[in-house]
């Protein structure tokens, strides 16, 4: 395997895995406050799926000759990145709708195309992940629909969540193709099967209609159907904000990493005990 190809995949797959793991936190923020038992179990099942996605992805990444522990060390020390979207706070229950609908919706567009990525273990993990992600997207859309059609207060919360998550969601696809340092090789090597701008356009085209159906307004005055292109035109993203968050300046950047590290450190004695116990058992077996 060419070294540059391996390096690119190690970075991309582990970043993807880290995003799944860190992504558990903004939704976990509302798990204990879910407003019905059904909403609670659906949300919990969804977060659990994300932990599972992390597991598949670390396994896929391990086939490239680096262990999960090594990848996680890169996350813990801030060397590795994860999706910037998780550095935004989830302030109301409507955010559980917005995250599922928009964030998972954007992730699916990207992941569907990755089912045809050139590296087999990554492509196969995407097939399984996509099935679950489409359930997540529906879960989010159900929450936001119920709220958009609910009381005045609920409707306001739904619109507010859309206002806050719209731009960060469409920035999830990364910089414009002209400014994306990794796109060139990734497309050439068939790791990426579509460019950032193509994927972003496809997401916007399908999401606008979903917002219309439930009576919410997408916070972009320049959003307009372009008959000639057969696509929506849309406004320019705030790239200063984008790069600031990528570089660790998101509202929850420090908090998310600290949360992960605190959990990891609190579990140190447990992992050590499990390892020691396993070694003792092995020794007993060897003696027998």
């Amino acid at each position, binding site marked *: 395997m060419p070294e540059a190809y391996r390096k690119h995949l190690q970075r991309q797959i582990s970043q993807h895995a880290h995003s799944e793991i860190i992504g558990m936190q903004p939704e976990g923020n509302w*798990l204990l406050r879910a407003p019905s038992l059904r909403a609670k179990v659906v949300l919990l099942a969804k977060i*659990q799926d994300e932990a599972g996605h992390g597991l598949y992805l670390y396994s896929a990444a391990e086939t490239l000759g680096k262990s999960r522990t090594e990848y996680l060390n890169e996350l813990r020390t801030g060397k590795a990145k994860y999706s910037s979207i998780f550095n935004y706070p989830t302030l109301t229950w409507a955010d559980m709708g917005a995250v599922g609908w928009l964030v998972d919706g954007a992730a699916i567009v990207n992941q569907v195309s990755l089912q045809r990525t050139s590296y087999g273990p990554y492509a196969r993990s995407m097939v399984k992940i996509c099935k679950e992600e489409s359930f997540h997207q529906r879960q989010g859309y159900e*929450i936001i629909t119920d709220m958009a059609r609910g009381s005045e207060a609920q409707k306001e919360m739904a619109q507010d969540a859309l206002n806050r998550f719209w731009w960060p969601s469409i920035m999830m696809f990364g910089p414009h193709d002209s400014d994306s340092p990794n796109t060139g090789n990734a497309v050439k090597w068939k790791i990426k099967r579509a460019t950032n701008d193509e994927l972003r356009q496809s997401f916007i085209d399908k999401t606008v209609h979903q917002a219309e159906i439930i009576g919410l307004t997408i916070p972009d005055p320049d959003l307009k159907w372009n008959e000639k292109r057969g696509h929506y035109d849309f406004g320019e993203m705030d790239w200063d904000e984008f790069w600031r968050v990528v570089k660790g300046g998101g509202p929850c950047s420090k908090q998310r990493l600290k949360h992960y590290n605190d959990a990891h450190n609190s579990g140190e004695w*447990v992992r050590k005990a499990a390892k020691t*116990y396993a070694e003792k058992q092995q020794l007993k077996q060897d003696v027998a």
Partner: protein
Amino acid sequence: MTTNEALINYCLRLGDSSLILGQRMSEWCSNGPILEEDIAMSNIALDLFGQARIMLTYAGKIEKKGRTENDLSFKRLEREFLNNLLSERPNGHFGDTVARNFFLSAFSFHLYSALKASADEQISAFAIKSLKEVTYHLRHSAEWIIRLGDGTEESHTKIQDSIENLWEYTEDLFAMNEVDKILIKEKIAIDLNTIKPLWNKTINEILTKATLNQPENSFMQSGSLDGMHSEVLGHLLTEMQFLPRAYPTAKW
């Protein structure tokens, strides 16, 4: 007290205990010592919420006041909850959670094994379904008791402390009152004295394997059957019930 009133009370005990422990287990989400444990603990929480939903829905149905699983979960006050005292104990560190879950899942395992034969069809079906789940919960917690007990010196000390600290809440699991008397007569509930020795045997076997000591009974907590809880329950409910309380007419 009529048989129906006793049955409602009994269903609330079962449902509330699963609900409150499920809420505690959800607090572990994204906080587990390894990813696999995070997933395992979410699984346990999902099972427990599933059990709670069955029992609370059933309680609401036989009560005939139109209360749903959500009304019973989100609109009752601290003193109305009938969960056992152990289920509301805070998670503490991983060992505290494991010890709590071990005592509870061993109890549920023997309780549901006996309730399979309940004369109430719903209780019996609930026990058959839930037994499969708590068999796994018991295996999970017992294996960790052994690993931590027979792991490092630090883990041994920690888990022994957890067991000592939680022991005083175990007697409350076996408390009975008028409700039990009525339902035992109808062959709906079981005499908890019959499963006490079984529970003791399970606990003793695992603790011995884990090189841990079973504590002696000294002061033992009680009160869950009368809705007498510890201070922590109010905080758990405040968080859990926030949205339905803040927006009483909203549908979610």
